[in-house]
């Protein structure tokens, strides 16, 4: 069986990628943010995963409103970075963990999920930025990826409980996979931010900091919260945090919070990460 070696949570703000593209890493605005991720990068170097499962949402780059899958799973051989309007980015394409991805699709449907299955599709900053934050800018990514898209753009978005349930199936898929790959799971998005409406710019640092500890040590309240609660506490786009629940549910109920980092604002977002390992 494959092995879950860690669960990571991270923001995926597009400005992070843009800052790297423009060489702004060490500017006063960005240095504290990127410095805090160094421990996460080091953890990743030491952990040597084979597969990264990345749970993220598209931001109107790959999916338009003509068809909106609540959950989509990639089974492609290659995922190219999509042009989001600023032109192509100079980062390598992502190689898919094809067979493992199909196995996950099988498990999902067995467990009564109905994902869209994507054979040919590009990926936006929701996947790109977390990979850059934890793997840097390699010539080629050192892992294969399994992308999971969650609709967090058009309501109705899935419930937190449903994201949690998907995480339990993800764990089952990893544990029933005959290979011996080392798998890391990245739940991405958030933390608090709001881009739309007169409350634009809403950031809730207290709720964000509580989230980083709570997602590790006491995730139950977050599973039970309504979508409205997420929007109220974390902002309209901060509801992306429901995607961390997929990662968290795939881990043991007891985890060790190995690293955490928080910085606000990154662009218009309270940004942060956690690195979790299953407790023995």
């Amino acid at each position: 069986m494959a092995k879950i070696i860690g669960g990571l949570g991270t923001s995926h703000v597009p400005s992070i990628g843009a800052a790297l593209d423009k060489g702004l890493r060490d500017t006063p605005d960005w240095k504290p943010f990127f410095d805090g991720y160094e421990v996460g990068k080091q953890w990743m170097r030491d952990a040597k995963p084979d597969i990264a499962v990345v749970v993220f949402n598209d931001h109107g780059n790959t999916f338009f409103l003509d068809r909106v899958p609540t959950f989509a799973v990639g089974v492609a051989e290659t995922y190219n970075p999509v042009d989001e309007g600023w032109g192509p980015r100079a980062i390598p394409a992502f190689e898919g963990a094809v067979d493992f991805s199909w196995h996950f699709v099988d498990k999902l449907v067995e467990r009564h999920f109905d994902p869209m299955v994507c054979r040919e599709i590009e990926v936006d900053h929701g996947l790109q930025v977390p990979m850059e934050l934890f793997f840097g800018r390699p010539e080629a990514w050192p892992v294969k990826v399994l992308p999971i898209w969650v609709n967090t753009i058009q309501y109705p978005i899935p419930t937190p409980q449903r994201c949690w349930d998907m995480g339990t199936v993800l764990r089952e898929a990893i544990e029933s996979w005959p290979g011996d790959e080392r798998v890391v799971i990245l739940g991405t998005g958030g933390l608090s931010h709001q881009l739309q409406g007169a409350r634009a710019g809403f950031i809730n640092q207290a709720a964000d900091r509580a989230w980083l500890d709570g997602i590790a040590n006491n995730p139950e309240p977050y599973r039970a919260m309504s979508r409205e609660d997420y929007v109220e506490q974390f902002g309209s786009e901060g509801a992306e945090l429901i995607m961390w629940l997929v990662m968290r549910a795939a881990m043991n109920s007891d985890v060790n919070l190995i690293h955490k980092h928080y910085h606000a604002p990154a662009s218009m977002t309270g940004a942060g990460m956690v690195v979790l390992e299953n407790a023995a």
Partner: protein
Amino acid sequence: MSEAAATIPDTPLFDRAGSIRGYRINKMAMALGQPANRAAFKADEEAYLDSFGLSAHEKSAVMARDWHEMVRLGGNLFFILKISAVDPTPITRIGAAQASMEHEDFLHLRLGKKRNG
């Protein structure tokens, strides 16, 4: 969901009504992901908007870069950001416009940035 969400002040959720209302604007903006469409937009913005069937009101909101109005008309930030990419307009200026605040005040009061730092 929509009714409950309406109780969160100044927080429009992109629900059924918004998706239907904003479909043309968002479709026009989505197309700016293609370099050829960006070129057409830059060459003759009004003709580009006409080709997506935007109403006069929608067109004027886009051409005036009235971000608040674009969102009110159902524009979703993730799509209309592609307009800002063509300009380019920083996202914090779009936030400030919606909050009806000066940009510097928005950075300081909403996002918590230190002034001049």
